[in-house]
């Protein structure tokens, strides 16, 4: 056991910090700081900057164009991005998770076709997993792909598809064998969003944001070469992808950043009272920091010991998801507590580079709209990526060998 942070890693952190702070455009950071999600343009700009530096995929190995960093370096990279108010990469880029599936299970032709454009950000991917009647129960999906000559013909519907409205491709789970057991008849297809027969319809969410969509497939013809990996092995690839996701969606670096914002809000006088002057608030803040610190060390442990905990690995990752999502909600709730009466107006995301003026009260402090809107969206944290109840089931099964 050696828990001191090696000096090379401290040096690495400083290198990352200096680059990010210098390279991140101020307007992108401003928007992020106020709590708004990045616009598509901003996301592509920042992605491009990182790509030019060779840092667009921090989790990928060097041979596939990634950084080749170890998990702790990736962790530090994201920590510095969060601290500098850079947009969260994997949030909008389903790409980061699709890539590993392609370079692990895809053909050479697929690697050559897809990976470079993911790395440059020229092509963004979304994940077509959930369907109207299969949320956490993914294996019951019904979107079908029927082989017809050199093509698959796809029919069905996906839902809750994050960022389908800006993506170029959708990584879709489709049923290719109706007669097999639910898990055995699923395959993965790469489908271009522009294909005829694909319709993307936005879902209006409680934060008024544009996050998720319904995606309809109506006789969509997909070249057979777009089948990723083997036919009917899609369930394996999906589990591989979701396993990676579970690890990254504790989002503890972002929570740390939100705690700093909470401290800032609590120090302001514009909300009628400085919350930092209230003992009860200080106690809540202390507890939040303490819990977040524990989560941070758990995430670091996961990064350093991946694979070494045996059967408990998966349970541990699920635990990170549960705690991470709960902390995201707690920090948001405390931020709202500071905002007081200002939680009431309905705020709309500003357009490209501008404030949406029509509905904004004149007197509202500048931090409020983004903070409030983000807090509303945070309710999704305990739902997506496998609801927390699903994670607790995984913990029981994988760490306690129950049924």
């Amino acid at each position: 056991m050696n828990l001191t942070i090696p000096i090379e890693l401290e040096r690495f952190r400083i290198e990352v910090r200096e680059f990010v702070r210098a390279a991140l455009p101020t307007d992108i950071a401003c928007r992020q700081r106020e709590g708004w999600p990045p616009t598509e343009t901003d996301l592509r700009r920042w992605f491009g900057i990182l790509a030019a530096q060779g840092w667009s995929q921090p989790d990928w190995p060097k041979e596939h164009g990634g950084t080749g960093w170890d998990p702790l370096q990736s962790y530090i990279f994201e920590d510095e991005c969060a601290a500098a108010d850079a947009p969260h990469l994997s949030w909008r880029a389903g790409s980061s998770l699709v890539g590993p599936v392609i370079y692990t299970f895809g053909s050479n032709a697929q690697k050559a076709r897809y990976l470079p454009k993911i790395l440059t950000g020229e092509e963004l991917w979304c994940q077509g997993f959930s369907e109207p009647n299969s949320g956490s129960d993914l294996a019951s999906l019904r979107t079908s792909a029927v082989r017809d000559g050199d093509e698959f013909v796809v029919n069905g519907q996906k839902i809750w598809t994050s960022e389908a409205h800006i993506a170029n491709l959708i990584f879709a789970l489709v049923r290719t064998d109706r007669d097999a057991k639910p898990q055995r008849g699923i395959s993965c297809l790469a489908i271009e969003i522009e294909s005829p027969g694909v319709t993307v319809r936005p879902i209006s969410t409680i934060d008024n944001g544009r996050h998720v969509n319904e995606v309809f497939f109506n006789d969509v013809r997909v070249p057979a070469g777009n089948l990723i990996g083997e036919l009917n092995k899609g369930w394996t690839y999906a589990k591989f992808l979701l396993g990676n996701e579970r690890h990254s969606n504790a989002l503890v670096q972002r929570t740390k950043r939100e705690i700093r914002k909470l401290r800032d809000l609590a120090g302001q006088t514009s909300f009628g009272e400085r919350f930092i002057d209230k003992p009860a608030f200080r106690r809540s803040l202390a507890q939040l920091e303490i819990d977040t610190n524990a989560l941070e060390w758990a995430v670091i442990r996961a990064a350093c010991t991946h694979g070494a905990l045996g059967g408990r690995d998966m349970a541990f990752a699920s635990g990170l998801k549960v705690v991470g999502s709960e902390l995201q909600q707690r920090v948001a709730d405390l931020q709202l507590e500071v905002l007081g009466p200002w939680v009431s107006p309905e705020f709309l995301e500003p357009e490209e580079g501008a404030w949406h003026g029509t509905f904004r009260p004149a007197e509202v402090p500048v931090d409020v709209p983004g903070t409030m809107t983000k807090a509303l969206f945070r309710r999704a944290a305990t739902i997506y990526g496998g609801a927390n109840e699903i994670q607790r089931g995984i913990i029981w099964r994988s760490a306690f060998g129950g049924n």
Partner: protein
Amino acid sequence: MNFEFSKDQLILRDGIRRFVDERYSFESRRQRVKSKSTGTDRAMWAQIAELGWLAVLIPEEHGGLGWSIADACVMFQELGRGLVSEPIMDSALLAVRILTRADSVSARLLLPKIATGEVFISVALGEAGLRYEQKGLSTRAIPIEGGYKLTGKKILVAGGDVADRLIVSAGTDSELALFDVLAISDGVERRAYRLLDGQWAVDVTFKDVVLPHESLIIGSQTTEILDRAIDEAALGCSAEAIGCMDRVLEITAEYLRSRQQFGRALADFQVLQHRIADLFIETEMARSAFHSALSAIDSPVATRQAAVSAARVRIDQAAHKVGNQGVHLHGGMGMAMEYPIGHYYRRLIMLARAYGDTEHHLERYERLKIRA
């Protein structure tokens, strides 16, 4: 003691339920919320007046029904349940309680017109940089020849976009005072925006607005009178929150029963059954806290304040839990505005902070009961 609704209360409740079914369905609500350009609906307001809801608390001698706060709370609970997002609380309770206790005769003469909907009145208390108390108001009313000159800014005035008159709090030389201000006057400027629950509100700027003497509604003991009216409104919001929670429980349990996952209904999963049980407990404890405060609403000030604050803390915490879990238990649907749950969630966020949030009420309770 008797916890059941009286016959009159049941009639009131059933009338509201019918109105909601017929004219305030979730679908019509969604349409209304979707059209971003309109504001508070005066036609709807006329219907509401016609149903008598605005008259409930107005004394009989002023053309009202002269019912009690308990009666009004039956109404608010049902409005909460039906997700009726209209500025009824400020007009029919807060404004009415203020005007009923007014020094000025002309102010009291407004009451019959409020009851009929002829006069739409909003209450402008909030200011940027204030939370839930009327201390350190920057809005000032300076005595001048023939009356007052009003200057300042108010925020979050519900229904202020269509209001005919505003009750405005302002500091005078010595004390807090409440004024009756015509919404369309020289120097009054309003800026409208929508609230989370689909209601509309305004920020109002008063720039050297000249007011006649008789516009002074209450000029002495204002704090006492206003505090009491606000406590009553806070209790009304509790009732509304309880109505919301009751409905959230129903629709969430129904959702769990109807939705299949892993080959069986979500409602078959024990953890979800127990989660609903916990929300049921929360809601019932909230209702009991409400009863406790209602029984003390006419008590001496310290007792009343402690009781209202205790109730608000308990109810607001329940509202948070029920709202949050209601969304969570709906899974992805919980995040989508196509389903009622998100609308209830938003309404509960606002109700749990109306006229004082949890921190405000915990502090007041502590001051009164723990330090004492």
